[in-house]
Every structure is written in structure tokens, then in C-alpha cells.
């Protein structure tokens, strides 16, 4: 097996597996940059996957055809944003511990989605979706020699959307007044408040954005990778996205890179069996590699990662 064949197996699978992680991690960047820890990404993604599966299914029956998944993305973005409000209200207005509130959000999503699935479909899972996001060749670009087939051959449109969004988020956070305010609120809320920035409002917006992105991430997962929704559809991808965000040092492009890397690690555990050297490595090492790497990254072996300064602290006006 030559190197091109190996790359031809690994790279498309890595990008494919990374897509939902990229989207969700971008959501995490918004929330945490504003100073609100979001452990609830897992639950938000679960909600998104549920909405993605349900509304793609209904989109099919309503005759939306191949647009059904895209319709479901729209709904997932909205529902994700609204669902994140719970976390925002608890952790920002009621000054709950942000980690606790995020954990509660995960619980709630796990219960609510399956409760609703049982209520709607009278079964523990949604039906399998016919209209899914499928592989396609990007015209012209896939004809480029060597990199064409790797990056643009038999790929998913959603992957390009995710990568494009990462660049958009980078632009928003680092090149716009909104981004500057967002970061100010996360680093030093009192200074930001003094400058006339509404800390509470900024944080609400940021948390809702994180819900919208994580919702989209979940919906993409349901419509491209899993194909339906069950209690085990989202099992840790939200935490993985959280890890990607930290590994990427709270930076949108860093998160993109880390998510792609985790996608690679995941794809190695899927495709590893077909690749010569990797066949000999026990499967479990490939499975745990993203988590071990995150721990190593945090411990500073991969370079110091500094969280936004005010992260995890509720802001109280006038308190020093």
C-alpha cells in the first residue's frame, strides 16, 4: 500500500469526523471568550442532533427532498440558541456555578431528547433518514493532481461550511468591535463595564451563539454520520469539542486545527485496521489518544494555554 492510498483513506475520514467537532468547538470559543464556561456543549449538541434527525425526517415527509437536512440545520441553530438560554439564565443572572449549570444542561438534554423521541415516535430512536448529507466531488477542484482527490474528492459539503465558519468566527472575534467587546468581557468584565459595555448582554449573546453552533454541530452529526438519533448518538463528542477548544487555546483557528487533529485520531481508530503500521498498535491507544493529548496540552507540554482571565466567575456590578 503506497502513501497516497493511505492518505486517501485517512484524510477524508478525518475531515468527515472532525466536522461536528469544529462547529461545536467554535460555539465553545464564543461562550468561553465571554467568560462563561460551557460544559453544556455535550447537551447542546445532543439537542442539535435530536432536532437534526427529527426535522430532516419531517422535511422528507413535507416534501423538502434533499433540502431537508439544511432545513433541519436552521431549526437546530434556533433551538440550540434557545436551549442555551437556560445555561445563560442560571449562570449569568442567577449566578449559579457555571460548571454545575452546564452539567445540569447535559442532564436535561439527555432526558428531554429521549422523552420527546419516545413521545413522538413511540420508540427509543428516530427512524433512519433517507435524505442525508452525502459525499460528493467538488467540481474542478477535485481534478487537481495529488491534493485534489484528498481534499476535494468524495467530501461532504458540511465540512467546507464548518471550515469557512471557523474563518468567519476568527474574523468576528479578532477583527470586529463585537469581538473586541466579547474578549474584554471575558478578560476583565469590570473594566469592560466601566467602558460602557453591557457585560450581561454580551455574555447572553455569547452563550446563545455557543448553543447555535453546538446545535448545528449536533445536527450535522445526525444527518451525516449517524443517520438517526438514539440515546447513544451523542456520546462524548461535546466534551471532545470542549477539549478541542482548549487544545486550540480558545482561538477559533486553533480550535479548527485541534478538531481536525481529533478527527484524525478518531479516523485512525476507524481506518487503523487497513493501514500497515497502525494495525500493530493496540486499538485502545488510538481511542484514548485525543484525551491523553488534551491532558498533555493542558499540562503545558505542548505549549502554555491561557484561558480567558474572568472565566467561570459570575460578574457582580460594583464588586471588586
Amino acid at each position: 500500500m503506497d502513501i497516497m492510498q493511505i492518505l486517501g483513506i485517512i484524510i477524508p475520514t478525518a475531515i468527515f469526523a472532525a466536522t461536528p467537532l469544529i462547529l461545536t468547538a467554535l460555539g465553545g470559543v464564543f461562550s468561553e471568550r465571554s467568560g462563561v464556561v460551557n460544559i453544556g456543549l455535550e447537551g447542546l449538541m445532543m439537542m442539535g442532533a435530536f432536532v437534526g434527525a427529527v426535522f430532516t425526517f419531517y422535511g422528507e415527509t413535507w416534501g423538502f427532498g434533499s433540502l431537508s437536512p439544511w432545513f433541519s440545520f436552521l431549526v437546530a441553530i434556533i433551538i440550540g440558541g434557545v436551549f442555551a438560554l437556560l445555561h445563560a439564565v442560571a449562570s449569568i443572572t442567577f449566578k449559579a456555578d457555571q460548571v454545575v449549570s452546564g452539567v445540569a444542561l447535559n442532564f436535561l438534554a439527555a432526558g428531554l431528547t429521549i422523552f420527546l423521541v419516545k413521545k413522538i415516535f413511540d420508540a427509543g430512536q428516530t427512524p433512519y433518514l433517507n435524505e442525508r448529507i452525502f459525499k460528493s466531488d467538488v467540481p474542478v477542484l477535485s481534478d487537481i493532481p495529488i491534493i485534489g482527490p484528498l481534499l476535494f474528492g468524495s467530501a461532504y459539503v458540511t465540512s467546507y461550511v464548518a471550515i469557512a465558519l471557523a474563518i468567519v468566527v476568527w474574523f468576528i472575534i479578532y477583527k470586529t468591535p463585537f469581538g473586541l467587546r466579547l474578549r474584554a468581557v471575558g478578560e476583565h468584565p469590570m473594566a469592560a463595564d466601566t467602558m460602557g459595555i453591557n457585560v450581561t448582554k454580551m455574555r447572553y449573546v455569547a452563550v446563545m451563539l455557543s448553543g447555535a453552533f453546538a446545535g448545528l454541530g449536533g445536527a450535522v452529526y445526525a444527518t451525516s454520520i449517524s443517520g438517526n438519533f438514539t440515546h447513544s448518538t451523542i456520546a462524548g463528542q461535546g466534551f471532545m469539542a470542549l477539549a478541542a477548544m482548549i487544545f486550540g487555546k480558545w482561538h477559533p483557528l486553533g480550535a479548527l486545527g485541534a478538531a481536525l487533529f481529533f478527527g484524525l485520531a478518531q479516523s485512525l481508530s476507524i481506518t487503523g485496521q487497513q493501514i500497515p503500521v497502525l494495525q500493530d498498535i493496540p486499538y485502545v491507544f488510538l481511542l484514548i489518544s485525543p484525551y491523553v493529548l488534551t491532558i498533555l496540552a493542558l499540562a503545558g507540554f505542548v505549549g502554555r494555554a491561557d484561558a480567558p482571565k474572568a472565566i467561570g466567575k459570575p460578574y457582580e456590578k460594583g464588586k471588586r
Partner: protein
Amino acid sequence: MQQVLFKISVPVIAVALGLLVGGIIMLTSGYNPLLAYQALFSVLVTEPYFIGETIRQMTPLILSGLAVAFAFRTGLFNIGVEGQLLVGWLASVYVGIAVEGVSAFIHIPLAILAGALAGALWGLVPGYLKARFKVHEVITTIMMNYIALHVTNSIIRTFLLAPGERTGEIQPSASLSSMFLQEMTDFSRLHYGIIVAILGALLMWYLLWKTTTGYELRAVGFNQNASNYAGINVPKNIILSMCISGAFAGVAGAMEGLGTYQYMTINAAFTGVGFDGIAVALLGANSAIGIILAAGLFGGLKIGALNMQAVAQVPPELITIVIALIIFFVASSYLVHWLRNRINKRGKI
């Protein structure tokens, strides 16, 4: 007296609000909440089987709640109980299988100790990283959970596999199960683990409130800088706290291995007991007695939910929703404080 009443009022209000909102959800999705709650609670006082199962469910919940609470007391947040529980489960089952020809009086403590040690080891890693590199324990413990899930599965698959995707059964000498307790409760899976759990709660109370180590641990939890100034070794206490917390979680796993199941399965996903421990610790206000009560409530809700489904057709997931809501309300105790302050002010003026 007013202070105590207020402390109790937060969890009580949270539970009431959680059940209320759960009822509204049932109502809006076309179920009868009164019938459902009646079905849920009535069996918990009348049916021996459900009582037995509730106590069985409480056992690991108490211990995982203690694990979360112990770390909380030192200002740490241990979300890694789930992973520590899994490694504790595996270690105790391994000792339960591998050690032969000893009496139960040696075998059971040995197996529980193995579980505690494995859990402590799993807690040591985040504790050390926190103390040495200031790495936030929330993220490392989550990562350790996944590592535990994959590693335990892999170990079972490679070394201990028995038909049915699980390990073999433990020796009878390591088992906590009891025919007497089972017969008494209409053949529930009740076992002697509840005694271990209650001893655990006593141990936590004693450690925290009656020993110097406990004093230091709590001091670090209140204020690290002041503790450091007072000559307390802060890093040492952080590591110690995570180890003890992990040990409690490991014993929770041992209860599943030696009591409920007598083996360990290959887990496709987390058991959820570790995460429930967060809810238990929060509702129980991190106190030993509070945790036992909270574990009783959540254990009862989970077991009663089965009857709720049978009688009122409400999916048992509703209880997960109620538990989540209770956590939200407990965490948002600021709301209760704020309300009280308003009322107090009005009363004065």
C-alpha cells in the same frame, strides 16, 4: 435556627420546583402527572421489591455523592467520578476473581480496597496536574473519564472476557449479595453494600470534622492563600483530596461489581452513577447526612420511575429531566437568597 431553616429551604424548594416543572411537562405532553407521581411514590413505601431496589440504587449514589462532595470541600470539582468508578469496579472484580481460597472476611475488604486504590490512582492524576501545573481539574477529570471507559473495556476484552461481553463472575467469597436481603425484599438485588456506603458517609464526616487533615482540607477549600500563609501545604492537600475523592468513587464501583452485578460488563457508554453523584452532592449540601437523604430521593425517583412508566405510561426519562431541573434550581440558590433579601427588606421598612 433561621440559618438552619434557610439552608434546608433551598434543597426543599428546588425539589418541589423540579417536581412541579416535571408535572407541567407531563401535562403538556398529554400525560396525567397526578397519576404518574402517585404511581412513582406509592410503590416506594408499599412494595418491598421497590424498597429493596431503591436501597440498592442508593448505595453507589451515596458513595459517588461523597466523592464529589469531598472534592467540593477542598474547592475542587471532581467530574471524574464516573471514570474513577469504572476503574474501581474493574479492580474490585479482578481481585474478586483472581484471589482464591480466602474467607469472605479477608476477600471482601481486599476487593473493596482494590477498588478504592484504583479510584484513588485515577484521582491522583488530575490532583497532581492541578497542584503542580495549575491545570483545571474539570477538564482533566472529564478526559480521565473517557480514558477509563476505553481502558477498562480494552482490559476486559483482552484479559478477562467471558461469554456475554463481560468478565467472569467473582468468587462467592468476594460477593456482597445476600439471599436473606433478597428474600426479604421480594427478590430485589439488594445487597450488603448499603452498610459500606453508610460507613463511608461516617468516614467522610469523621475525616473532615474530627481530624487535623480534615481541618487542613477544609481550610484549603475556603481560601488557598490564607491556608498557604498559615503554613498549610496547599498542593499536598489538593492531591490528597482528589485521591480520597477518587477512592470513594472507586468503592462506589466496587459496590456495583461485588454487590449488584458480581461481574463487570463492557460498557458502551458511561453508567451515569458518577454524574448523578454531582446532583446528590449538590442537593445534599456536601454534608454526609444530606448526601444519604439526597441519594435516597434520587434512587427512589429512578426506581419509582419504572412503576410510573408501567402505570401512567410516562417514559422514565422524565425523571432525568426532573433531576436536571433540581440541579438547576439548587445551583441557582442565588434566586432564593435574592427573594429572601427582598422579603427581609420589605419587612423592616
